[in-house]
């Protein structure tokens, strides 16, 4: 049975995917901005942010309209409620990309301070989490969503590692303090993006299974 509402839900999903696609492009450009020291790509990141913001407004309205006009139940309701929560996560990811790109513009004027492929790995792992969270949404893949949630620990560990590296560098050579402090903000933004990918994966699980996996420690209190 095809329903008008079915089409509206499909449109909603497509719009959310289009927004996610823009955000993923921003992430890729942000990685390139750092790797290639490209100011042009940093510029492109902030241009894309405007269109992501517009998508947020459009999707918010679409969700409210569907809730009001279709009074959905069950998985339809969970899809719309979760979309309302995924959209701001995506929008925040866009903002973090802008933050990183802004710092990159400053860093691009100076000598690199971090040795090795730390930054590429952090950007790459984070990008992979966002991509897989979106894939889990598209394909209704609960196992993939769970894997994304698990991977957040890896990104956190990498963040802590880079942070200590930068701290060591600053102690050894005060001349790199300014550059390093910009980099600390960069890595903090990557780490936040990974958190947001985790939130999206949690929403995907809610859509698929109707279970809220957030704040597990509140839901499964330790046995006394």
């Amino acid at each position: 049975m095809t329903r008008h509402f079915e089409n509206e839900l499909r449109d909603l999903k497509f719009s959310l995917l289009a927004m996610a696609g823009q955000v993923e492009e921003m992430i890729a450009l942000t990685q390139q901005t750092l790797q290639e020291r490209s100011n042009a790509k940093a510029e492109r990141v902030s241009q894309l942010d405007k269109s992501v913001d517009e998508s947020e407004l459009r999707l918010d309205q679409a969700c409210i309209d569907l809730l009001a006009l279709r009074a959905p139940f069950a998985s339809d309701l969970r899809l719309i409620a979760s979309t309302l929560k995924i959209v701001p996560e995506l929008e925040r990811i866009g903002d973090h990309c802008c933050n990183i790109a802004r710092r990159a513009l400053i860093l691009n004027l100076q000598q690199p301070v971090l040795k090795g492929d730390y930054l590429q790995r952090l950007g790459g792992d984070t990008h992979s989490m966002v991509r897989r969270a979106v894939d889990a949404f598209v394909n209704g893949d609960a196992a993939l969503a769970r894997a994304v949630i698990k991977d957040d620990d890896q990104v956190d560990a990498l963040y802590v590692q880079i942070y200590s590296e930068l701290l060591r560098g600053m102690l050894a050579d005060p001349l790199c303090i300014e550059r390093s402090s910009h980099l600390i903000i960069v890595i903090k933004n990557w780490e936040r993006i990974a958190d947001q990918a985790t939130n999206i994966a949690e929403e995907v699980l809610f859509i698929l299974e109707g279970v809220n996996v957030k704040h597990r420690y509140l839901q499964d209190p330790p046995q006394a």
Partner: protein
Amino acid sequence: MTELDPDHTVAEPVSIPEPTVDGQKPDHPNLPPRMTDIPLTDASVLNAESILHVEEVNLWYGEKQALFDINLEVARHTVMALIGPSGCGKSTLLRCINRMNDLIGSVRIEGRIKVGQDDIYAPEVDVIELRKRMGMVFQKSNPFPKSIYENVAYGLRIQGIRERAVLDEAVERSLIASGLWDEVKDRLQESGLGLSGGQQQRLCIARALAIKPEVLLMDEPCSALDPLATSRIEELIFELKRDFTIVIVTHNMQQAARVSDFTAFFWMGKLIEVGLTEKLFTNPRVRMTEDYISGRFG
């Protein structure tokens, strides 16, 4: 946190303590409970004892079986909504509960339906006595061609009650309970047929309440009413469950979601899923329930 009574509302503005250093607001005894503290369903609903027990009920209209192995418990002072597509057996079950199917010759019923401890299909049961314990409200309001007063007093009169004071008290009490008193108290002797559709339905509810039933059975009570009259009846259902137990058949899923504590979904004479309304409408366990409540059926 202090224990709050169910009707607790915060009457006076409370001073909200300043956030602490880590940005968390500390719990404050005067603060309203946090969202996680307030389940939509009152805990008393979950612990309430059952008043109506449907056990292994099978029903045939002639050769055709219309109900299959139905088991259902309805807790005291709760609202149970029966939903499902036309012909799924929900109205048939409702009619079983006050033995209205007895009026159809070809009906055969197996299983037990108990109100409290009493099996209503036991041979010694007096059907008239039984129906005093059940109020029934139908889809189409059906006031008698009598005055408003006589409509409400009818059930008591056929019980042989004649004392004016008793009748007056019952009429007033029932009309107040059905939310109609203020609208009709100055014209109790006028015909019940002169009321609007929504008022007529509330008159029928008052008539059902007059005999102080234990269970109120409602068969699509709002399907012929406009949204305003519907919302009055829904509010009324909410009020009435304090004193009565309500089983309501409705085709309107939003209505089931709004008024009921528990929802039972029927399909082709079978009870597919029953559960807390908030759970059933956000995360049903059975695929068929999901498809039905989200309009994907068929």
